[in-house]
């Protein structure tokens, strides 16, 4: 593994299915950071992640992990990658003890001690078959397994979906611990934007197979804002200056992507700070322009 700046580099990734196209996606996950990958269901997050993990083959584009092209690099690079999926990918007949025996011989850096410590921390039984685990237990088990072989890159596809807030919070803290080591990076796809707001350094937003925004989370949140105004004031705003607008009975909320310049241009307008969830909502409706 040569010295690298970005844990993941994606350039012009495209993949076509009947009725869906992932269209020229490009973004980077800097080393030592956590990237939140957000989008609706069916936006293309899983497709992108599957392409990174070589589960599916991209039609075109380049994907580099740790600076190496995934098409030509050998399987040994996977020693340093951990994947967590939205469904438990282990046989129901396995239990944690058996899984430890399996993965101990799979990953060179596997630590049974770390794995069982995580199991204890998550209060997961060691000898119970996975078929009897609840969804939350299955997710915690996956995360325990993912964090037990000193992986440098953690890729998670909707890993926290379906978990209660207490468990999600606990897991997010663990991810922050994981990132204490600057060699570690995380790519985390989710539509629970509140989680990403808590821990993500950068964010990539994808919708209907197209990349809409990518960049540092704080910069994105800083540059975007929501204009709350009356219908009359809204009419005075040029439609090209807004992403989209939610028309209500008592007023209009319009998303702008450049707060500073809009603030200068329309001096009377109040532009409130926004959240990733609002950004997602307004961008998803960008084609409609006005929606309720």
């Amino acid at each position, binding site marked *: 593994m040569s010295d690298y700046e970005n844990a993941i580099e994606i350039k012009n990734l495209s993949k076509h*299915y*009947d*009725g*869906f196209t992932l269209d020229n996606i490009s973004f980077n996950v800097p080393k030592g950071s956590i990237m939140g990958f957000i989008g*609706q*269901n*069916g*936006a*293309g997050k*899983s*497709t992108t992640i*599957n392409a990174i*993990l*070589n*589960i*599916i*083959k991209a039609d075109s584009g380049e994907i580099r992990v740790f600076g190496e092209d995934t098409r030509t690099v050998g*399987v*040994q*690079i*996977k*020693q340093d*990658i*951990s*994947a967590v*999926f*939205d*469904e*438990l*990918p*282990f*046989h*129901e*007949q*396995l239990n944690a003890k*058996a899984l430890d*025996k*399996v*993965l*101990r*011989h*799979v*990953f060179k850096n596997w630590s049974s001690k770390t794995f069982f410590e995580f199991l204890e921390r998550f209060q997961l039984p060691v000898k119970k078959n996975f078929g009897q685990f609840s969804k939350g237990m299955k997710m915690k088990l996956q995360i325990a397994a993912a964090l037990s072989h000193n992986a440098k890159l953690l890729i998670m*596809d*909707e890993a926290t*979906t*379906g978990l209660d807030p207490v468990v999600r919070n606990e897991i997010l803290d663990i991810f922050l611990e994981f990132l204490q080591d600057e060699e570690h990076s995380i790519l985390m796809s989710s539509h629970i934007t509140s989680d990403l707001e808590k821990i993500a350094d950068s964010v990539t937003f994808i919708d*209907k*197979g197209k990349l809409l925004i990518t960049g540092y989370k704080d910069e994105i949140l800083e540059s975007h804002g929501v204009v709350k105004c009356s219908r009359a004031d809204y009419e005075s705003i040029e439609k090209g200056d807004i992403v989209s607008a939610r028309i209500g009975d008592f007023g209009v909320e319009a998303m702008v992507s450049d707060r500073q310049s809009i603030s200068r241009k329309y001096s009377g307008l109040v532009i409130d700070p926004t959240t990733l969830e609002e950004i997602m909502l307004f961008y998803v409706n960008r084609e409609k322009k006005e929606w309720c």
Partner: protein
Amino acid sequence: MKGIIFKELYISRKRIYISIATYFFLTLLCVLVKMSASFGNIRLLDKESVDGALNITFYFFVFGLLFTFTGFLVNNVSSDLKSHWSIYQRTLPFTEKQVVGAAYISNAAMLLVLFVFHTLMTAIMCMVFKMQFHAYFIWIFLIVSLFFFLANSLIMFAFYRFRDSKKAALFYSAVFVILYLSIELAFISRGTYYQTKGKQDAERLAELQGLPADTYSPDTFMINYVKEDIHSLANFFQNYWWLIALIIAAVIALLFFASVKALARPADAVKPSKEKEKPKQSLFGSFGNQKAAAEGDDD
């Protein structure tokens, strides 16, 4: 590769335990028959019946128990697909050769152990039943073991190729049916040959003796040709068992590489069957969600 081999054996452990129990249970039954022939009710029968019972029991043990070998074979591809382990496996530091190789090594090791064990048990049973241990027992065990390995490899290939239980079952069932029908047709055509030759010989003998053509039954002459064929077949197997083993091994190798190639295809090379599609949450979510999105389905 050790990890995957352990996983293969661990997932199959219940079936292996049942097969062990079945083997020893049937062995016990054979021993009980022998004990009954020596000390029990079978001893009360006439000598011919006792010898017949012992012969059937002995050969049932030697050849019949070979079918329990199938229970020891590892084939978890279907289970891997169902649990999505097949997807997770793609994120592990293994090549496709290692993944398929792990199953093949597990099966080869299992069959080798069973081959040695059954040979030893047969030797013991020969002493118990006072029967002769023939050399051909060993090459029959070998051929049968290889055949089971071949059949299992074919089934595994079907699952790797189609990634769907129903399609795989259809494929390998079709192969076995074709094989069975081929053998059946071969027997029928050979049977026709026996009948024709038998009839010719019966008519020729009757003609030589100046008797009517239908004096002798063709069956008496047919049996000679059947015996001749069986002898030739037995000789062929005895002399060329290594060739049969080689051919089976070559087909197994072919299936190995075909399985590796099938496994190497990306996960979306084969669309999952409808009942497996879960539009909301799926490792194949890219299919379900994108199809749903394309059709305008809202979550």
